């Protein structure tokens, strides 16, 4: 499965504000990309796992957790796992940084 991924350059580190999500559209797929205060990067599909959906990019970031903007669910940015007592999982995509360029695998 991993081999089937294609990697895309998604801008520079400095294009992203710390702890504030940014929407990146790759080949028509909408992602929410987050830069933590420790400069780790995470990419999630910009779709809330809540049954009512909605975006994720506008949430509040704390460490490697996201508090989603619409329902205040706590989501682990590393795995997309929704934290108890809520349940669900957001889709995550691998990110790596080379120099100051961000690469996302789709």
């Amino acid at each position: 499965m991993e081999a089937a991924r294609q990697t895309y350059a998604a801008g520079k580190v400095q294009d992203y504000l710390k702890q504030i999500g940014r929407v990146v559209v790759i080949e028509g797929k909408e992602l929410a990309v987050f830069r933590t205060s420790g400069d780790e990067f995470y990419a999630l599909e910009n779709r809330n796992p809540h049954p009512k959906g909605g975006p994720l990019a506008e949430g509040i970031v704390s460490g490697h957790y996201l508090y989603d903007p619409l329902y205040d669910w706590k989501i682990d940015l590393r795995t997309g796992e929704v934290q108890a007592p809520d349940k669900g999982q957001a889709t995550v995509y691998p990110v790596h940084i080379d120099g100051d360029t961000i690469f996302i695998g789709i």
Partner: protein
Amino acid sequence: MTSNREKLVLIGNGMAGVGTIEQILKLGGNYDITVFGSEPYPNYNRIMLSYVLEGSKNVDDIILNDWNWYKENGITLHTGTAVTRIDGESRKVIAENGLTADYDKVIIATGSNSFILPIPGSGKEGVVGFRDIADCEAMLQAAKEYNKAAVIGGGLLGLEAAKGLVNLGMDVTVVHLMEDLMERQLDHTAASMLKAELERQGVKFAMGKQTVELTGEERVSGLRFSDGTELEAQFVVMAVGIKPNVDVAKASGIEVNRGIVVDDYLQTSLENVYSVGECAEHRGACYGLVAPLFEQGNVLAKHLSGAETKPYEGSVVSTKLKISGVDVFSAGEFIDTPEHTVISAKDDWKRTYKKILLKDNMIVGAVLFGDVTESANLQKLVKQGSEMTDDIYADVMGTGCCGGGGAKKTASVESMPGEEIVCGCNGVTKKAIVDAIQDNGFTTVDEIKACTGATRSCGGCKPVVEQILQYVLGDGFEQSAKTGICGCTTLSRDEIVAEIRAKGLTTTKEVMNVLGWKQEEGCSKCRPAVNYYLGMIYPDMHEDEKESRFVNERMSANIQKDGTFTVVPRMYGGVTTPEDLKRIADVSIKYDVKVVKVTGGQRLDLIGVKKEDVPKVWEELDMPSGYAYAKSLRTVKTCVGSQFCRFGTQDSMGVGAMLERKYERLDFPAKFKMAVNGCPRNCAESCTKDIGIVGNDGGWEVFIGGNGGIKPRIADSFCKVKTDEELVEICSAVMQYYRETGNYQERTSEWVERLGLDQIKSAILDNEEERKALAQRIDFALSQVNDPWKKMLNDDSTRSALFEKAEIR
């Protein structure tokens, strides 16, 4: 894949049945599970339909287990499929659409149906029960089209339906056969108090009336009573009772009385067929509440999973009405007879009532109205049939001084069995809570809520959860269970503010590091709060942290559920010009705004702007931000006033616009609304605003602490002033005092009640020096604010990071 696991079929996808399945899964019961439900939804929380009707929840919010849950647990779910019968010979469950399922075990949990009075006209259009989502949707729809509604039945359901319909703007009359409301839970005194309270909230009553006919052509148009009188109504809710839904059992030859007869292990008369919930009759009793059915479900789940369990021996039921501002509680027996010893206390001024019934000195029942803090405790005592002692008496009735004390209350949770349900809404047992505390080292109710879900719905169980916490932590409780502003800290708001000042902390990060936050970067509750406190303390130096702001404030526009935004320009005092209106119209057309809405605060919402268009919309509007998203001054609503109104004695429009210009943009603990009226007719509704101003012949009267919204509160008269200068000084002082002493997210209505009107008066009215100092401090803070839309338009990199999508191919 065929498996050799036993096949379990559940008939009825409701609270009792699925609750049982959840328990079975937890216990590791080894079954292939198939569920039939006649409604087209996954399992939802029926209790919360009252909130759906009231408007504080919607249907999606009340889903308990979504479609995924069934999938993940390998459960086959047939929704919209009613079962007709069980064939015990061939061991098959047969549905009306021909679907069948083989079984080894069956659970019947078909609940109840609304009881529809068998009177002429009850089949007409516009007559519904209050039972499921479909009924609820019919009510929401009716409220849009019709005005006059009648609810037949003054019990729990009827009253909740009536209040919901009132909230939806209908003119509602509750028709009740008896002279007392909720006569099956309340005595005459409590029922009268309840009626008076509901009347204040806008519900009308027709008591002692027997409905004999529903009139009208195809659609109902009114009710006729046995005394010949009539009532107009284009919509009728029947809430006169429920009847156990026993159709499947009957068709399958299972013994049925009022409900499906079951033994202490929920076994029906047909082998391998069980029944739980409202459709079941156990030892002659059918229950209409969730707590008993969770208790039944627990026993059945254990029985079916092969775990050891005590038999089910019946439940003591208690009742809580889910209407905001109406606290009633009853448990066990509630009507006094000569056999009872009655302890009671009624306070007409505080509108509270408390009654405890004893039989041979055993506590057998209780009724509370107005103040239900003792409800959890009493429920326990009634359940256990405890003997009345001096200590218990002091505890529940109060000793008149500082007596009572929390420590003793833990005695009752101590003796509570582990499998007893503490949170009826979410089916959480005492054991689950105790385990959660012990395994995770929890010290707060919030942590328990996050982990187990207890206290998450109606909140009625919170006192017991607190007591369990106290009991588990023992002596460690006092010190460690002190609740902070959120789960990240044990510090209170006042402590945090004091530490920031004392230690000169300047960023949220610093606050959290220095004060030992558990989650290093805080959460969505404390980060915005700390950011606010910092800004309040250092209005000139604090650099506002966008990343600690809720999305609406960060983007200076309101997010909608589909991810689009609402943009609201300022209209000072609710006054605009044809030129501005034209510009708003042009921009709305150009950016394809979905809806333009006039708000309750007298301005225009442009709803449905695409995220990337938001900055362009601001730019082209070229108007100041209306702060519809902010914890800040929202609007100053005004009436027409002396400029045009024949009654007006003061220039409300002018003063309203002046105040809005003066105080806009500053952060407050919560949103802040004002109104200015030209005369005491009060057309702009000062009584529900944070500050309401009413003109009179000699000047102005100022009101504070009003609120519409979910917890309405009428504002208190604060003072009268003669000149506009005095008016501004008072407003400034009140606002700044609130900024400095309010908890983040606390509206002035709560703030006034917490501090007490007298304290605020003495701080501001009796102390001229302090008043002037407060006014100066707010002026200083006001001198630091900027329009966020302008600011963002001048900051290219932030704007693009926040609003633009990066397109990559």
